[in-house]
């Protein structure tokens, strides 16, 4: 997923005589210039609004559900005992309808479902970046044995089929950590917590190698750049060279990667939940709601469509925003 980002190295050779433009004002770093470019990008701004909306939904979920007056209880009386479906798609009590048979409110699940999507997306991609960038930096800058080892680990992890491993690891983790006293008793919510953590770990474990590979390549080319040589010739300690000279120059690829990872992770969460190895209630997630509702897409469409549209919109906004970011950071693709 991060293949396209390799060209970002070029952004360092920035505005100069070769690319005359309006005289830049005092003190603007490439990042600031990129941000300014981004600010003028209408699509990016629109995307930001969409993303912001869902972030707000996630944060304000408790407020929203109390305004809507819905809860997470069963409402058997809301559905027809014969068909198992509610007679309404949406009404004042249940704006997004209720689940078949149990009558659980779908607005409640939608509002709270925004949380795991965003948390998984952000936490997993942040962790992925931290691990991937660290390993990539180490491998690229130190070279030698470290590079060999890290590259091997990268090869190794990338050779494992991700989805199959994810499918396999969940039941193992549940067995191992689900009932530590081997009584078979799983505390309320413990399973969903385990699933949550496992999901994030699996995503990070199988994605950081891609990031590390990319960053390593970047570092290898940056390392030979003259300003790094200059820093070394000044007698700068290695740590400082890495932190002060290399790292800031990786901001571009890192941000671009982040904007690719977040939507990818959100989509993956939904997919895993569909396969039954993602999140489980009481952690509501859109992926889970979609997978439950998809069978009823013709008889009770609102169940599936609301979370589907939400996920799609969020992913679309995030990836369009990601494109805008990578454009903004890449001087060659000015729009």
């Amino acid at each position, binding site marked *: 997923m991060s293949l396209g980002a390799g060209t970002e190295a070029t952004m360092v050779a920035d505005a100069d005589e070769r690319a005359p433009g309006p005289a830049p004002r005092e003190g603007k770093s490439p990042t600031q210039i990129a941000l300014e470019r981004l600010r003028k990008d209408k699509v990016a701004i629109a995307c930001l609004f969409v993303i912001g909306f869902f972030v707000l939904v996630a944060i304000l979920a408790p407020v929203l559900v109390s305004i809507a007056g819905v809860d997470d209880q069963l409402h058997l009386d809301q559905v027809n005992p014969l068909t198992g479906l509610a007679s309404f798609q949406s009404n004042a009590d249940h704006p997004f309808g209720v689940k078949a*048979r149990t009558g659980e409110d779908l607005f409640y699940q939608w509002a709270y479902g925004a949380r795991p999507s965003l948390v998984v997306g952000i936490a997993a991609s942040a962790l992925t970046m931290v691990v991937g960038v660290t390993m990539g930096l180490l491998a690229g800058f130190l070279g030698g044995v470290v590079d060999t080892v890290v590259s091997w680990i990268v090869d190794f992890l990338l050779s494992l089929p991700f989805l199959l491993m994810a499918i396999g690891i969940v039941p193992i983790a549940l067995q191992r950590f689900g009932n530590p006293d081997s009584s078979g008793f799983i505390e309320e919510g413990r399973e969903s917590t385990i699933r949550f953590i496992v999901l994030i770990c699996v995503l990070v474990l199988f994605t950081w190698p891609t990031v590390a590979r990319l960053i390593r390549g970047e570092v290898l080319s940056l390392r030979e750049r003259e300003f790094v040589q200059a820093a070394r010739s000044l007698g700068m300690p290695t740590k400082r060279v890495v932190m002060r000279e290399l790292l800031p120059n990786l901001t571009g690829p890192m941000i671009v990667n982040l904007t690719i990872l977040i939507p990818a992770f959100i989509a993956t969460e939904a997919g895993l939940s569909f396969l039954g190895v993602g999140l489980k209630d009481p952690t509501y997630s859109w992926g889970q709601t979609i997978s439950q509702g998809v069978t*009823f897409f013709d008889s009770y469409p609102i169940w599936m469509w609301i979370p589907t549209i939400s996920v799609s919109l969020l992913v679309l906004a995030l990836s369009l925003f990601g494109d805008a970011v990578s454009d903004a950071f890449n001087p060659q693709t000015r729009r």
Partner: protein
Amino acid sequence: MRWTTVVALATAGTLSLAACGGSGSSGTNSNNDAGASNTALGDAYEKVPASAGQRPDVKGPAPEIAGAKKGGTLTFNSDVTPESTDPSTQYYQDTAAIMKLTTRTLTAYRMEGGKSVLVPDMATDLGQKSKDGLQWKFTLKPNLKYDDGTPIKASDVAYSIKRSFATEELPGGPTFQIDYFKDGDKYKGPWKSGDTYSGVEADDAKGVITINLARKFETLSYFASFTMFGAIPKAKDTKTNYQLKWAATGPYKVQSYTKGSSLTLVKNTNWDAASDPARHQYPDTIQFNFGKDAATTAKAIMADNGIDQTSLTYDGVNAAVLQQALGAKRKQVASGPSNCVNWNGSTMDVNKIPLEVRKAVAAAWPIDQIHQAAGETPFDYSPGGTIGAPQVPGFTKFNLPEFPGKGQGDPAKAKAMLQAAGKLNFELSYYYSNDDEAAKNVNKVKVAQLTKAGFKVKAIGVSKTERRKKVRDPKAPVNLGQGVNTGWCYDWPQGDSIYPPLFNSTLPNNSGAGNIRDKALDKEMADIANLPVAEQGAKWTALDKKILQKYVPLVPNAYSKGSMIFGSKVHNVVIDPNQGIGDFPSIWVG
């Protein structure tokens, strides 16, 4: 005896067990094409199936079905993958139904106007019993052949039976032979113990199979309909791989079988229709596809386009098409009683819960809510207030006021009862699967209702696998929902297949229902079981009533149903009430 399982949840597809014998009876039962009303709903919803019995004098061939056409391809799609198709180990509804197409047995059920009757199949009658009841003789009909044209010998049938004792090599099959047959506990099958076994002997010249018993087995004729009473040519036995390619004796033979994926059956030209009273040979090809998503299969069949017109599924009526099944597409549903009765986790340990409290639990039990929360629909059950299934011959359906078998329960009344007994806040504890959506919902319903009725409820959430172990754990520190807690599916339609496995005092703790330890009851059950089959039914009915009233070990919930949906060009889908699944050999397309 054993087992049972959950009634198919609409979401999960059927996987219930127990194919078995019996001369049942069946009453209302379902559809034929062309507007024949099915009994899923409405007034028929609560109607009880009638009984049918054994018909030892029936000869082949099976009577033609009016309007039936030959030819075409019939396609079955199912979510469930058959575990094993080895004739010696088959114990599930779906495999039993499938193998009825390929494998003839000594006796077999056949549908007679909606009733399921036990008739002789390969044998000339339903078995000749010696005076002391300890020796049974079955005589093979002449000129029976395998699909390759070689004749079927009595020793082949004997070999097939002996093979079923090899539970180590071929695990998972029924074990009545081990309990009842002479030296059944010592013989370990032909591979470990050799070919000679005093329990089963064959005379190829006369075509007679002799079975020697250790104790009386009045319902052996029913048991003889299991596929282990078929024929296996010893020379072609590939042991664990026999399940992949087995010799056919029925109207169809295996053309190709990809385990877990698909099975294609074609006509067996060496099958003799004249000698077979229980099977037809209508479609040219019968195709089974396994592991197909239940919801999409259901939608496809209801959409009724192309190949789906000649397709059907035994996964039940999926929730996704429930509305259609109840409305416009009602003609494409067959639904009828099955061999199971449900009590949805209501087994009460009679040693741990006082009688008055058990009665209060029964009064409070939220039957309808549990059905709804579990996702059970009228295609899955009809109300039922007895432990036995009403299609058992001689059984008379009854409804005790304490056990209405339906309704929302009365927490207020239960609370009053508790108060009267001075047991307010009595603690009820049980395990539930907290990794199963339906089980969690059911639990929510139970907790709410029982708390309302003045109980203290301790619901312990464990994983599905863990729960499976816990409910049978003799030392489990809970008092509700242990043992055979979901319900019971009989192996053949007679009380000896129902009551002793549930209430015998010799059963280990938590492996029956309610842990009743009463020698008198044991004796009563044994006495009834030793009566001739025809006399048993009425006695079991009385015993059923007595157990419910005297011990209150469980709250009967429902008679479960088998349901199938099928395309518009599939005809004569009839649910066999003794199997809970359609009678495949009588289905035709066109």
